């Protein structure tokens, strides 16, 4: 599977995703500069974490309007997949490719810590290798991770099974104490209606090697690789 890791001015998890994709899951990967609209030879685009444009104005606001992001709808229509982590999730929401918005953490502080998320939807290309109700451990690191959407949007998310990850205890219970940032309904990650775009606040690339504390993040990549069908297209939802 050919991965493209997008680099905006201020992105920093690009190197980490690149490392994991090339050294751990050993797939072809290249960096995609934010001004680049040519996404022809790629299967999956990663929007990594960081502070694109310093998070100035709003996190992801400026990056969400860049050439590479504007090229994403066409990329998706050709069968591509997009994974946005942390700042990437913020960018996808600002670009309107995912519904809702990420706000400042309820505790008003930056939080870097390990979290557990429970998997609510295993029918996406990003989660097909998982079991329903499986609990993954992945770190978060953000100041603006509180997911918000209005009532209709939340209804739609639920109706179309778009909520993929929710913050939970190690046993998989969705509780207030397990919610590190005050996200609505403990939402940690969602997909679009077609299931081709995943946005999540945790950092799967930081949970891809046991030396780094855990390998649950790899499961997303394994799902992606497992989603490849013989003819090179993806089995989606």
């Amino acid at each position, binding site marked *: 599977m050919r991965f493209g890791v997008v680099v905006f001015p201020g992105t920093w998890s690009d190197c980490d995703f690149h490392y994991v994709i090339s050294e751990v899951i050993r797939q072809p990967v290249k960096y995609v500069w934010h001004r680049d609209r040519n996404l022809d030879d790629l299967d999956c685009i990663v929007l990594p974490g960081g502070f694109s444009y310093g998070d100035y*104005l*709003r996190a992801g*606001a*400026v990056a969400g*309007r860049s050439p590479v992001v504007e090229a994403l709808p066409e990329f998706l229509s050709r069968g591509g997949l997009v994974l946005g982590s942390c700042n990437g999730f913020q960018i996808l*929401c*600002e670009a309107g490719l995912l519904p*809702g*918005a990420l*706000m*400042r953490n*309820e505790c*008003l502080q930056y939080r870097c810590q390990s979290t557990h998320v429970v998997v609510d939807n295993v029918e996406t290309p990003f989660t097909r290798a998982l079991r329903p109700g499986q609990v993954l451990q992945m770190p978060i690191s953000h100041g603006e991770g509180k997911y*918000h*959407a*209005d009532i209709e949007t939340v209804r739609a998310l639920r109706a179309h099974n778009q909520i993929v990850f929710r913050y939970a205890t190690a046993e998989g219970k969705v509780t207030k104490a397990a919610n590190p940032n*005050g996200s609505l309904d403990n939402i940690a990650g969602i997909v679009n209606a077609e299931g081709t775009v995943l946005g999540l606040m945790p950092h799967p690339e930081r949970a891809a090697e046991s030396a780094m504390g855990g390998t649950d993040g790899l499961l997303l990549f394994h799902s992606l690789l497992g989603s490849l069908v013989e003819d090179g297209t993806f089995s989606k939802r």
Partner: protein
Amino acid sequence: MKVRVLIRLKPGIMDVQGAAVQRALGGLGFADARGLRVGKLIELDVDAATPAQARNRVDEMCQRLLANTILEDYAIDVEGAERLAPSEQVR
């Protein structure tokens, strides 16, 4: 033309920062501060022949980038123009 944009969280949206600031004021003896909400002020100059043109231009900027319309409302104030009544401003 000088333009000022006030950006605020929409009324229904919880303002955690505002709540924290209000508590802090309370702790300093300002218990009479209530309903505190924190917003953003953006000031800029635009080329425009009339205040209406300036307003339209900046309105476009707000829609495109300056405000996140899922979360925020905005009010545009063009220097020298009449301030519109609140019901005409808020989007």
